[in-house]
């Protein structure tokens, strides 16, 4: 029997919950504490937990390195692109009110904030994963009795 059986079962139960909580923190950031930064860290911690328990190679199969690189750049581009979109619609840079015609409820602000925070989430998640992959990939394998 695998000595880490309990950890594996509980981790399989918890990792989806952690990711869902991360997304809740992101999309509920308008109403409660949280936002893209915290959400990115939480989602990254779910993948790191997976990597700690099932090994770095399985984590790299789930979240490949090319995807990490893509997300890191995509987040910054999404943030900047939202600003450019407000430019093209005739407002100041990152002035979200023009994104939606419903000015009485400020729907444009909501859309803009969610988009911008999505960019932050993607970049933070990717950078945390990149740092972890870079460090953990170089660490030598520790014999079981070493700890």
């Amino acid at each position, binding site marked *: 029997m695998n000595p880490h059986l309990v950890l594996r079962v509980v981790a399989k139960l918890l990792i989806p919950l952690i990711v869902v909580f991360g997304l809740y923190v992101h999309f509920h950031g308008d109403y409660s*504490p949280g936002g893209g930064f*915290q959400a990115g860290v939480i989602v990254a911690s779910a993948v790191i937990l997976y990597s700690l328990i099932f090994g770095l190679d399985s984590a790299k199969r789930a979240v490949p390195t090319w995807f990490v690189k893509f997300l890191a750049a995509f987040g*910054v581009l999404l943030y900047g692109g939202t600003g450019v979109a407000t430019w093209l619609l005739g407002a100041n840079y*990152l002035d979200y009110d023009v994104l939606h015609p419903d000015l009485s409820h400020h729907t444009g602000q909501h859309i803009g*904030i969610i988009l911008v925070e999505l960019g932050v989430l993607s970049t933070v998640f990717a950078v*945390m994963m990149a*740092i972890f992959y870079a*460090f953990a990939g170089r660490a030598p394998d520790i014999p079981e009795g070493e700890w």
Partner: protein
Amino acid sequence: MEFDWTQLLDYALMAMLLAVGIAIVRLRNLFAAVMLMGVYSLLSAAWFVSLDAVDVAFTEAAVGAGISTVLMLAAMLLTAREAEPVKAARHWAALVVVSVAGAALFYAVGDMPVYGDPNSPANSYVGMDYITSTPNEIAVPNVVTAVLASYRGFDTFGETVVIFAAGLGVMLLLGLRGLKKKEEQK
């Protein structure tokens, strides 16, 4: 003036922060030091909650206590488990720097506003303006999100670029593939 009993909680948390900080400095075992840094972050998160700064506390708990502990452990595996003892001469230089900085900080305490002062700079100029105009201009219940993502969108963009640059630096210096696969390729 009535005595506010909840401030005792703040003092207790600050005393624990001080104790943990001294323990981190004194410890030679890097594993224990990394763990205590996680404890330090968690304590400061509790302190931020007690100061009603829940957004900051959330970030501190997720980043400081959660992910940076794991990243520090991963970094520690690449180095030794124990720190080398520092030479005594270096201790004196550090003591001088720390004493001067500490004296300067104590000198500056006199200019700090009292805790909860309604006329302090943070509460009087632009901060109040954000709080009063967020419901009309942004219509988002969480003022912190409104300030971070809308009013101060440029600053947050800058932060995102800084994080991206940090990740880029790590990717360029260390690479994402790791050592083992490179050796296999050879």
